[in-house]
């Protein structure tokens, strides 16, 4: 357990000392929030909800996507390429310690990102923190299940990139497409049906919807496609992604590059 924390600590140190990762993973979502939040401020969606409030909840979900999926799917191939994984395999370190270290760092980053985004959201975009224990509970489980499924998919995705250098080019478009179709930049219920159906396969749509149930007034639920927040369905789909993601990871994870044979 100490070893897992030490590994997490090493991961976080490397993260916070790398300016690119700091900017892209933590500051970029805040920049987006400020830019689009300001543009969308006067667009009313009904029930007193503005598009900027809608967008802000989507950005919190995107924060999970960035710290879980994008972060891991980009850094693991780089580490694999540079022989970091091989270096660890040369030691008696139990394999799970490596993933535990990643998990510690992903959770820490997600917490930091969410707090920063919430501060901006509350101060500038008229988002109110939940007042009931039930809403906080929903916030917690949607966040946890969402983050786990994103992180597992990030690890699974890490084996798809052929080299560390190609990873961002593979991962960034996937994240953008999901954000456009899952109710981050645009109102989900206003999207074409085929696009909705596509996005509903993936976890991001369900995380954004779950977070809307936490931060937007209950009356807004009627504006959702199903006319409700669909929390039960959200839990099932995110849970399924957690299990599916884990299986994908176990099947695909590689410690060495293909060149290494």
């Amino acid at each position, binding site marked *: 357990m100490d*070893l897992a924390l*030490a*590994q997490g600590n*090493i991961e976080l*140190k*490397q993260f916070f*000392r*790398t300016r690119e990762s700091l900017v892209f993973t933590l500051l970029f979502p805040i920049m987006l929030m400020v830019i689009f939040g300001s543009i969308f401020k006067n667009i009313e969606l009904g029930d007193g909800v503005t598009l900027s409030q809608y967008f802000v909840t989507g950005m919190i979900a995107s924060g999970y996507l960035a710290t879980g999926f994008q972060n891991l799917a980009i850094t693991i191939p780089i*580490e694999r390429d*540079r*022989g*970091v994984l*091989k*270096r660890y*395999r*040369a*030691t*008696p*370190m*139990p394999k799970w310690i490596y993933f535990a270290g990643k998990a510690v760092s992903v959770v820490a980053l997600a917490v930091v990102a969410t707090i920063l985004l919430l501060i901006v959201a509350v101060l500038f975009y008229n988002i109110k923190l939940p007042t009931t224990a039930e809403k906080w509970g929903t916030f917690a489980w949607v966040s946890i299940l969402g983050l786990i499924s994103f992180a597992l998919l990030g690890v699974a995705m890490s084996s798809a990139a052929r080299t560390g250098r190609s990873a961002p080019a593979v991962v960034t478009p996937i994240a953008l497409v999901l954000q456009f179709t899952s109710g981050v930049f645009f109102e989900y219920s206003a999207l074409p049906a085929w696009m909705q159906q596509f996005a509903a396969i993936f976890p991001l749509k369900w995380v954004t919807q779950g977070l809307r149930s936490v931060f937007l007034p209950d009356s807004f639920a009627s504006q959702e496609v199903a006319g409700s927040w669909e929390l039960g369905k959200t839990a099932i789909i995110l849970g399924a992604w957690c299990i599916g993601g884990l299986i994908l990871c176990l099947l695909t994870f590689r410690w*060495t590059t293909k060149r*290494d*044979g």
Partner: protein
Amino acid sequence: MTELAISVEGLQKSYGSNEAVAGVDLAVNQGEVFALLGPNGAGKTTTVEILEGFRKRDKGNISVLGEDPAHAHAAWRQRIGIVLQGTGEFDELTVGEVVRHFARFYRNAADPTEVIERVGLTEKSKSRTHTLSGGQKRRLDVALGIVNQPELLFLDEPTTGFDPAARREFWDVINDLAHKGTTILLTTHYLEEAEVLADRVGVINRGKLIEVATPSELGGRNFATATVSWRDGREETDQPTMVVQRLAAQYNGEVPELTVKRPTLEDIYLRMIGER
């Protein structure tokens, strides 16, 4: 009769139709420094990575510290140190942080401060590793390879890309380890390196081990004839002093353009791998 640190019989490994290792037999004694010498692509790294438990073999019997590396487990890894090819993995961490972190993985880890001292990086202990020179990065790799006080250390082309001064400093570190009784398997394509560090040298070419000998005996070097040449002729002889005396008498003093040349290790090596 001491137990062997490494024993290999009939090792084979192919990648598609390319036979990277074509039947290698190898025995490395405990406490010995053994150098695998060969040109790029000869099969050195494949052989070593099989011994390190990173690659699967097609055929052959292998025992490394009494175990089959194909079933490498944590207890075995505790006793082995590996310095891989390539370097520069933890850019944003300091030398001290990296060594201390890796020390945590081992039961019998050495004191990280001492390890850093041994590889001569004490002054760089608080520097981020991306600020190190190539030679210093390689010494950090060695620090990670020896932090568990291994019985057996693998060094895969440890000084490729070094300038001569850095190479000499690096050799001192390795010689120091060897004197303390660590068994070392080294791969290199630098002859001089094999000559300075190794007790025995195995020359590997096209996946085959073509000779194993001490550096001074490699390729029959100790029996090789010397070439005496002068302005008016040349002579192959195993008694060059006699020839020179005869010539001196003949020319009545100074022999014009006299040279006496024995084959260098390099001459012998290049002949062995068919480059000359």
